[in-house]
């Protein structure tokens, strides 16, 4: 299956390689680098490439390419999913997944890769098991390690791998037992010029953080499970219970994990929390244009809209902008032609406005297209779909855990066409 892995940074340097079968020269990456050079954006590099002797499957995450070399038929998603799992694991271990952090922890990274694949086939990908074998670095541990010469490889053997609940490590003990659930919903929407909704849907995810001793068996139920249209679960969730009773019943992994993701049925009308009035125009004569954007509250369910941000990818011809914002700050990156207007909290009384002129490269034809606006926003304490957790029960353990549920709504891929 997966033959080798190369980590490549965005400038095209190969800074880590790992082979699970015989060694493949890093020259094989040249094919990839060639394509990468041609692509304007790194995202535009096709994930699957064919070379005379190998196939290259890559993902782009956090400005890094994870490039795997394949020799024979394998489901491409299998590899892609695995590479993302590797990136997730790095993120989980080191807090971020960047070139410098990987280089700093190259030994741990190598140990992780060694455990995650055997002969190119995934072996241990559950974070709980990996952490049992290879402890994530912490400042304290690295100090202790240098002093005592002890290691970050667990001296225990990974018993979790043998268990029937492979996602949970054994013998968990906490003095404070707590379980937190974040219900996070994202609005994916496309609004057209006039503000009409072309397409809108809600994606939800329940992120959990459980620190519970022993083998707790949790049951999470919703007030209105009918809202959920399509779901996918962490392997710990008992699907049959969901099918029959619409409750989530599971023995959680230890620590942070994504319990489920869901999609709210499209029959329900999606409340769009803000309206956007915009006018971006370029004049036929004279090299300039006008921009005027106003954002106001629409259906916010009485909650405060925060973290409001508008991103505009300007046409290449726009040289500079001269704008004034009634609230917040804006920046315009000359190289990438990206205008970012960071608004912050939305003031319902005085809707924030950004207006001014755009100067266009003289002589260039009038930009044909009006750029789309990407909106980011956050609303605390609200799940826009109306989903509510009813209760959380725990069986199998005697103690009373501290339980918490938090709701949040965010803009996902929220785009306004102009």
């Amino acid at each position, binding site marked *: 299956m997966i033959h080798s892995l190369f980590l490549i940074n965005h400038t095209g340097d190969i800074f*880590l390689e790992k082979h699970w079968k015989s*060694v493949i020269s890093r020259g094989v990456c040249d094919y990839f680098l060639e394509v990468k050079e041609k692509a304007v954006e790194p995202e535009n590099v096709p994930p699957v490439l064919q070379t005379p002797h190998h196939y290259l499957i890559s993902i782009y995450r956090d400005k890094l390419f994870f490039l795997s070399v394949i020799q024979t038929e394998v489901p491409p998603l299998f590899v892609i999913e695995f590479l993302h799992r590797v990136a997730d694991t790095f993120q989980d271990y080191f807090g971020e997944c960047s070139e410098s952090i990987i280089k700093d922890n190259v030994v741990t990274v190598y140990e992780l890769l*060694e455990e995650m694949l055997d002969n190119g086939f995934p072996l241990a990908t559950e974070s709980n098991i990996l952490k049992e074998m290879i402890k994530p670095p912490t400042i304290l541990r690295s100090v202790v390690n240098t002093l005592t010469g002890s290691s970050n490889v667990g001296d225990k053997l990974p018993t979790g791998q043998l268990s029937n609940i492979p996602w949970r490590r054994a013998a968990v003990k906490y003095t404070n037992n707590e379980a937190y659930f974040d219900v996070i919903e994202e609005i994916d929407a496309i609004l057209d010029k006039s503000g009409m909704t072309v397409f809108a849907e809600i994606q939800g995810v329940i992120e959990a953080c459980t620190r519970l001793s022993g083998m707790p068996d949790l049951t999470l139920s919703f007030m209105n499970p009918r809202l959920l249209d399509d779901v996918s679960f962490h392997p710990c969730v008992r699907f049959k219970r969901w099918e029959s009773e619409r409750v989530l019943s599971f023995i959680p992994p230890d620590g942070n994990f994504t319990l489920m993701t869901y999609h709210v049925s499209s029959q329900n009308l999606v409340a769009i929390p803000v309206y956007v009035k915009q006018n971006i125009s370029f004049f036929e004569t004279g090299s300039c244009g006008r921009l005027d954007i106003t954002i106001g509250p629409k259906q916010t369910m009485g909650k405060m809209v925060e973290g409001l941000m508008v991103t505009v990818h300007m046409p290449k011809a726009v040289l500079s902008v001269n704008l004034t914002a009634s609230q917040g700050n804006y920046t315009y990156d000359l190289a990438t032609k990206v205008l970012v207007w960071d608004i912050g909290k939305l003031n319902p009384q005085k809707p924030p406005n950004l207006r001014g002129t755009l100067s266009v490269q003289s002589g260039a034809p009038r930009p044909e297209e009006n750029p789309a606006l990407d909106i980011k926003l956050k609303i605390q304490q609200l799940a826009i779909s109306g989903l509510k957790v009813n209760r959380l029960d725990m069986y199998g353990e005697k103690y009373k855990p501290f339980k918490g549920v938090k709701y949040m709504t965010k803009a996902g891929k929220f785009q306004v066409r102009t």
Partner: protein
Amino acid sequence: MSASSAFNDEKGGSSSVGEPEYGHDPASGGIFSSDYKRHDDLKEMLDSNKDSLKLEAMKRIVAMVARGKNASDLFPAVVKNVACKNIEVKKLVYVYLVRYAEEQQDLALLSISTFQRGLKDPNQLIRASALRVLSSIRVTIIVPIMMLAIKEAASDMSPYVRKTAAHAIPKLYSLDPEQKDQLIEVIEKLLADKTTLVAGSVVMAFEEVCPERIDLIHKNYRKLCNLLIDVEEWGQVVIINMLTRYARTQFLNPNINESLLEEGGEKTFYGSEEDEDEDDEDKDKKAEVATMAKRKPYVMDPDHRLLLRNTKPLLQSRNAAVVMAVAQLYFHLAPKAEVGVIAKALVRLLRSHSEVQYVVLQNVATMTIKRRGMFEPYLKSFYIRSTDPTQIKVLKLEVLTNLANETNISTILREFQTYIKSMDKDFVAATIQAIGRCATNIGEVRDTCLNGLVQLLSNRDELVVAESVVVIKKLLQMQPEKHSDIIKHMAKLIDNIQVPMARASILWLIGEYCEHVPKISPDVLRKMAKSFTNEEDIVKLQIINLAAKLYLTNSKQTKLLTQYVLNLAKYDQNYDIRDRARFIRQLIVPTEKSGALSKYAKKLFLALKPAPVLESPFKDRDHFQLGSLSHLLNAKAGGYQELPDWPEAAPDPSVRNVEVFTLLERVTTLTSVPEWTKCSSREKRKEKKVEKPFYSDSEGESGPTESADSESDSANGSESVSGSEVSGSGSESEESEEGSESEEEEEEEDEEKDKKKKKKELKKKPVQESESEQSSEEEEEERKHERKSKPRKSDSETESGDEEESESESSQSESDESESEAEVKKKKKAAQSKPPAKPVKTDGKKEKKEMSLLDLDDFEPAPSPQVTPVNSFLSSSLVTDLEGLSLSDSVLSPATIAPSSALKSYELLHRITGEGLSVEYCFSRQPFSPDANMVAVQIQFTNNATSDTKNLHMEDVKLQSGMRVKEFPEIELLPAGETTTAVMGIDFCDSTQAANFQLCTHTRKFFVSIQPPVGELMRPIFLTENEFKKEQGQLMGMNEITERLTLDVKCRNEHTIVQRVTTAANLSRVPCGSDKECRFAGRTVTSSSLVLVTVATKEEGAAQLTVNCEKMVIGTMLVKDILQALTQ
């Protein structure tokens, strides 16, 4: 590579981005000396005694390896440390070793003995890791050693080691393909493994080593289907892909006879939505189906159905690869009506990473060509955002185009209009092509599209115009006569358009339709002749063409022009153009020499050309298995296994039948978990087993099926089968609620067994002495009933109970009113089903399957069954099966174990793994005389082999601290075919930890383990009511556990309660004044802690269970057990 900076690197692992050594040749000058020196330093560290220094050195070396630098000269120094005690050093040495062993074969051999030692380690994880590294060392010399190690590991007791063995198989295969035959043997063996841990890995090995040996799958097919949901995600992908291929070779095309399906047959076959009331109708339907079967319509093989049903829940997996695997399985295997379910899941994947989107969209694009309707509801999910990467945009566009039809075309076109304004010009070009395709596919919008495209001709962007021209050309070709004004318009454009392809297209168009624009075309040729020398080659060719065509139609005006053009072309630099000019001149200009061809010149040039078909690049891609790399590349990748076509006639389905016992899950190998309910888990399951310990007379009844992975599935399977007995067309069963609640099912089963047990007791009284044929015959019979009734039981509990009773004729019916009714029904059914006495092939198979999946636990040894009235339900093949089975098992005659006949026995060693020796054990509940603190375990050995077994004894007992074992006396000789029993004592220390030991014969050793249910960890004591109350008073607070419960309907009398509680735990009844309360008492065997149980009943089955016990763990577990026993 500068030595100093590299050094720093390794030390801290930190290096700045721009370091010069990356990707540079290590052999550049000046480096060797310093390199050498540095390595000396590392060697010194590796040779030191301090682990910390070694670790430091290894870390630096691994960092070098990670960056692709050569560290091979350190090999001797590193390999010495392979036996280092420090686990991290060891691991890093492994990493290094695996990387360089291939280059340094001789030295690598030094390490082998360490691994060989590791292979014998008592710790399974060490054995596994030793095998893993050993098999990763690519040194040909050790192939025999690897082979040996793999073989040994494949029969290891630990499933984890077996998994590692499965991983090692492809490694060895790639090292030495000659070993294939031997490896296939190992694969075959591991395929039979029943644990989820192994399943994925072994199928992986199968796919890499011998994907063509599809016959190896037959016997394991059902097991794989049933285990699937509990296999780890990566294994699931591999198994599903393999099973797709398998199914294509073994089953019939479900869409073969569509019309028939539509006629409501569909409901019966695939529906499964309706449940309860289906019960009766179902039978009728099935009878119908049976008759239909004779007319040879399509009937889905139940195994085919099993696969579809068991993969469906995996659509909810978080792993995109799993979802895709299921989706392709459904696409390739499911009846058309059912494929739709995958759409939603695939659309969900579109919200994932862009790489995932890319792959999914490719597959969706292929699917939409064949099954457009499936994705239509999700049209808007394919709308494009300006921030999508280009390749995603293009794919989405493809899907949108495929989805376009008369009803949604207007929305799609409106959407396309926004896309045309995009800044991404490649995407705009793709959009224009998409519009063109929509226009060709949907006649109604052709004019609209054409007009739209013509408007685009005035676009400022040349690319857009060019692309439009090309597309318009294609469209016009379909109906040129209507659109001469468009052609004129385009002729005008030729002055402005610079893109060669577009110019060429326009010229071609004018040439082709010069009759429609007679005035303009010569003029265009004139302009072109003027600029001929500056044109691109494709344009020049088209100019020549245009000239030729005009010459043929309008030679008066264009003769000179043509000659001029041809003359220019004659001296062109490009030989193609020169050739073309010569050729055309010969053809069209009449000279003396010109042959017959010139007469036909007009026909040649102005032949009617078929309009181009604009079709999707994804057309016919589905001959590649979807989701595969080959599909994505549209080219066969190495190692790709073709997806076979459906067979004309179904191959013999009986090949998948399995001998019943092979599906018996042992108590000792509880590694695999059924369903998504898995985590509910071990505990419960074990408890469940405990609950009905005295239910079976003897060995056959091994609780494990309860726990077996196939549990609920088997129930499902049996549902389908229940129908088949009557009709021969089982599979249409429900995947409905009842099937899905594995737990309930189990409960019901238990309950039923309780009943059965009662009956058996009743029955036994008269015949007890002899343990007679008759009784066992009855049992046999009963078993058959149960087999049948079980499926129904899930529909309606009561009925099943009744039925069973009614059928066991000899038994007293202590039962309810409805019984007779049930009996009548039953008889009717019998009558109905008699006609198809000659069972269709599938019949036999299904019945067999039924047995294998479901009834193992009911299987009790019985002397040869006699044909009872019931058998009329069963096909003859089933009877023979049963005969065979009972014969094979009858060796384990119950005689010796008779005293404890009420106890449930567990399997310790299966006769297959034991090479003929089978061993069962039960908790005899007798005091163990040598040591009162031990639990007596009665073990029954049966020698099924043809040779005698000698020196049976146990060895190498591994226990948790505090536990003790009193071994049974050695059995010197167990002749072939004989059975003997022995008693051993185990002090479990009041825990449910397993006692592991080896069972040795004169030839072999077997790893076995005994794990007690909590109820067996106590012995009954006698207390008076007052004593009981007093003791209870002292065990309050934390020591008291109270649970409310609702008693099962059949468990509302005192007798049943007592019986169920005592079945679940070895307790004795305490007399009690109130009839609303039952009390029980016992002491744990080791610590003699009191265990008091009270069941207080209230109205309507409400009850309260109280357990008082000093040992809270025991108490908690006991509560669960008893609760389970009472609520089922």
